[in-house]
């Protein structure tokens, strides 16, 4: 099975690789997946407190090419969005953009989970009450 050109492009030039200071109040961190499952994604957002806009997003991912491309794409999409807007990112948007085959859909699900987890962490730190299913670790 060959990878789509978009997956290869993100894999070869991943956007926003790195680490934000998770101690900062306006940084939300989502860590999803498990080493035993072959995928771990850590996605972080830094929110401008005045505007509520995501000003920076970083990721690190342990996983296959599609997992790395999915998280790279997610960070690209997150920047400049409000937190509420970010919550509307759907895994199927990622599937479509990267032309992921069915066996790789779980990579996009993981990226969506990571976004939700990062936002939940940010909200929790800042006392913003919302009901969320996402689990937050780290």
């Amino acid at each position, binding site marked *: 099975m060959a990878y789509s050109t978009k997956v290869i492009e993100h894999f070869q030039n991943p956007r926003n690789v790195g680490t934000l200071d998770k101690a900062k109040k306006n940084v939300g961190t989502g860590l999803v997946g*498990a*080493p035993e499952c*072959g*995928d771990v994604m850590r996605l972080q957002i830094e929110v401008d407190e005045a505007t509520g806009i995501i000003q920076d997003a970083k990721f690190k991912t*342990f996983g296959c090419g*599609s997992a790395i491309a999915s998280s790279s794409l997610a960070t690209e999409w997150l920047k400049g969005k409000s937190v509420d807007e970010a919550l509307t990112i759907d895994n199927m948007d990622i599937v479509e953009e990267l032309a992921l085959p069915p066996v790789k859909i*779980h990579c996009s699900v993981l990226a969506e989970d990571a976004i939700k987890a990062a936002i939940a962490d940010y909200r929790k730190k800042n006392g913003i009450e919302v009901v969320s299913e996402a689990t937050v*670790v780290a």
Partner: protein
Amino acid sequence: MAARRIYLDNNATTPCDPRVVEAMVPYFFEHHGNAASRNHPFGWEAEEAVDYAREQIAKLLDADEKEIIFTSGATESDNLAIKGVYEMYSRKGNHIITVKTEHKAVLDTCNKLEKHGAEVTYLDVKNDGLIDLAELEAAIKPSTILVSVMWANNETGVIQPMKEIGQICEKHGVLFFSDATQAVGKIKTHPREVGVHLMAFTGHKMYGPKGVGALYVSRKNPRVKVTAQMDGGGHERGMRSGTLNVPGIVGFGKAAEIAMQEMEQDAARLSKLRDKLEKGFSELEEIYINGNVEHRMPHVTNISFKHVEGEGLMMTFNQEIALSSGSACTSASLEPSYVLVALGLGDDLAHSSLRFSLGRFTSEDDVNYAIEAIKKGVNHMRDLSPIWEMYKEGVDLSKIEWAEHG
């Protein structure tokens, strides 16, 4: 500059040796006869060619040519051996012993027989991939008819103690079948010497063509019979009907002849290259060689690069270097290699593994190139890996409650 392509996946399939191809070519047009045509020279030529190939293969196994049954490949040979023995010896018993690290062609065949009344014991392996002989012996009971243990494992290259297993089988009067697909033509595989009664192997793992394999079936002491799984014209002494693949068989025979002459020097050269490959990675932290390193095929190594996912790692270089990963990121089940898991590796290490299998056409240059490319890939992937970062910060990954999705 043309893209470099390095092939380190010889356990998947080997290239067909040009000398083999050359031997095969006349049997497509010039000598195209059916080996079963008894009444004209076309048939006689084909039959003669098949007989000669059978001799070449028998010599490689130190066997009698009547003990070689041609099939379409090792999967068919595995099926014929296991199902054929199960049917032929059903009056004696219904119990089969095999091992968790066998190839799917053996495991799924056993699985199917379980649905038809067989009782199957799947032995565990130790952390080094070898079976525990005492456990094997303890598993044998009066209803046991067959022990099926592969000669060398396809993923780790680990070689089972064939002679000892043969002795146990002989002591208890049980037939011993071995899937020797990865061993034949690369190391000495003389079934009679080690007490193997049936043995499966194939052309395309030993520089022969795809689509042709064989089953060795012992003719004396003991005389073994298998029930045919393919009915028809009664070819191959009734054990496998179907027109013989003459060009394929000719190539298979030639491959066996070459293997016999060159096996030793190939093995010596490849084990040096394999060791060089392993040493080349020694400056990387947290790498693990999977399986017993002494009882192992000379051309194989299976290495886990911790905190790096195997398929992602391959993507850093797989336009150029072909190999396999125990990561099952592409499989629908998302399960990592069951072989590595049976060795007691955590799923995380199994996902991080690469299998290198060198071959007759692997050069030292290829290995040097691969070492550099893979080192670069591992470092790159670790820079991207959150768990590598956590490991470097001293976080105990086993203490984290991972949020597993799905």
